[in-house]
């Protein structure tokens, strides 16, 4: 055990206080919005720094009565799950293939795929809009799902391939020698072993689908195919900004990703580390 001198004690307290201060500053925007979301409009404008007299839940009610949040939630869920499914299945298979069964030109193909990770989404959305139009998929959550998924796929391969690389090869070889087909080995040996990586990827894919704004504002003009992100923006019209509903809706949009991120924090941090 190291004995700390008095000066060192003080500097430790200073460092901890600095960190605490930074943490407060970092959470304040969202916490303040949560408080604001249960204020009435009068309270909001009359006393910006005061807490509400009593929580006004009407803002949350308005989301469903006025702003189609029921159907928007359903759309967001569909898009997110679709992105997770496409990313995990296609990305998982491809990452494993690139890791274990290189074919002629696979290194070049892999580099090409990884480079597309840097494609400006707004540049892709222009021709993709025309493609979705000719496929008759505009105003349909399918087009939004496909758009988010194709931009997410390179990141998935980027994260998963090193993951498969790092798995002990001997177990898979044993599986092969025991007569399993390569796909049997993939499904029964590699996938279970790579489960933490797959969870990481699923989590990031869910967040990508849940939070995307670009594809919904480009591909959807009807509430029937509008997810939460772009539905939120309906609350700021040229005439009036519905601040109460806007803040309530933002908190509503944030809660699922927040809960999932905290619950799977370990995986999220690993995703950050592997994803760059």
């Amino acid at each position, binding site marked *: 055990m190291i004995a700390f001198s008095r000066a060192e004690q003080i500097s430790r307290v200073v460092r901890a206080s600095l960190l605490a201060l930074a943490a407060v500053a970092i959470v304040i925007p969202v916490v303040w919005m949560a408080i604001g979301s249960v204020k009435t409009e009068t309270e909001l404008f009359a006393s910006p720094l005061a807490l509400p007299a009593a929580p006004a839940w009407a803002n949350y009610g308005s989301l469903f009565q006025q702003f189609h949040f029921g159907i928007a939630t359903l759309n967001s869920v569909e898009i997110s799950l679709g992105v997770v499914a496409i990313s995990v299945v296609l990305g998982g298979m491809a990452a494993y293939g690139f890791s274990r*069964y290189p074919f002629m030109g696979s290194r070049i193909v892999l580099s090409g795929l990884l480079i597309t990770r840097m494609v400006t989404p707004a540049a892709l959305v222009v*021709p993709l809009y025309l493609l979705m139009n000719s496929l008759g998929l505009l105003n349909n959550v399918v087009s939004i799902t496909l758009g988010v998924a194709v931009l997410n796929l390179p990141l998935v391969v980027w994260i998963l391939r090193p993951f498969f690389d790092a798995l002990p090869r001997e177990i898979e070889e044993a599986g092969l020698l025991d007569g399993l087909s390569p796909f049997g080995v993939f499904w029964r040996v590699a996938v279970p072993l790579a489960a933490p990586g797959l969870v990481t990827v699923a989590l990031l894919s869910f967040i990508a689908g849940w939070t995307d704004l670009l594809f919904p504002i480009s591909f959807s003009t009807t509430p029937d195919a509008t997810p939460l992100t772009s539905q939120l923006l309906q609350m700021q019209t040229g005439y009036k900004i519905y601040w109460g509903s806007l803040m309530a809706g933002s908190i509503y949009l944030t809660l699922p990703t927040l809960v999932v991120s905290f619950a799977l924090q370990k995986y999220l941090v690993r995703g950050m580390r592997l994803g760059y």
Partner: protein
Amino acid sequence: MSFKRQVRGSRSRGPAAGLLTWNRRVQLTGLVLTLPALAFAFAFMVYPVANVVFLSFHQYSPLRSADTTYAGLSNYTWLASSDIVAHSIWVTIVFTAVSVAIEMAAGLALAALLAKLVVESRHAFGRILSRVLLSSFILPFATPAVAGAIAWKMLLHPQFGPVDAILRTDIAWFSQFPLASVIAADAWKTMPFVLFLLFAAILSIEPDQYEAARLDGANGWQEFRYLTLPSIVPVLAVVAAFRAVDAFTKIFDIVFVTTGGGPGNDTQVFPLLIWRTAFDFLNFGQASALAVVAVLVSAALGASLLAIRRISPA
């Protein structure tokens, strides 16, 4: 990384023909596993990008007319001579440089402080404190960009925003200081990413080295300056490069929600310019030319990142 070498070695019966069959089977398996993803990427990424190149040489305004007419290089000459485009590129560069600089500085400072706290925490209190801190630092990352943007719009609102209320001013931050406000919101949103990567890098430095530094009588700042910082320079470089490319190519949501590119064109970053040219002004030809430039820039940046990633030990 493949089975090829090992399995080939372990198969003692292998005549030349058998090896070829095995090799072919490996190749075929690789193709079958990767084909669905590649077909998907081809249909919804490669083909559209090829189409955007085609469109960039044409005039096309859907909703007005379904015709594409050949326009030669006119979209590109417009692009090269337009003040709006030049201004947009300039805004994007300023945005990227300032935002990444803030993220890196704040992320590095907090990561170093946090790592020191974690390493020195031998009591339950210190461990709980560092867990709480880590969780709070992750919050902006877990907040959807749209919601984060609305939070900042509320924070900086001239009538009921707490910032103006505390300062006793009524500054409309997003109108009077639009770029600075957008940068603040973006730096807040992305700083955790930098923080966590640098935090992990600092924690992976050998504890013995800190022990040695302490025996030599180094104080906290000297420890940071002469041990921590030099040890993580490669990670710093890679993270900064990645953040810069991401900021430059992907900034959209926060600007779209807070300023919409305004006032005037003050915050019209390049991705937003592409989008508005297509979906507000319905000029898909010009938008395609802008998109081609964006794709070329991102491909070049992406390729150099891959190269950096390969040579860097980070």
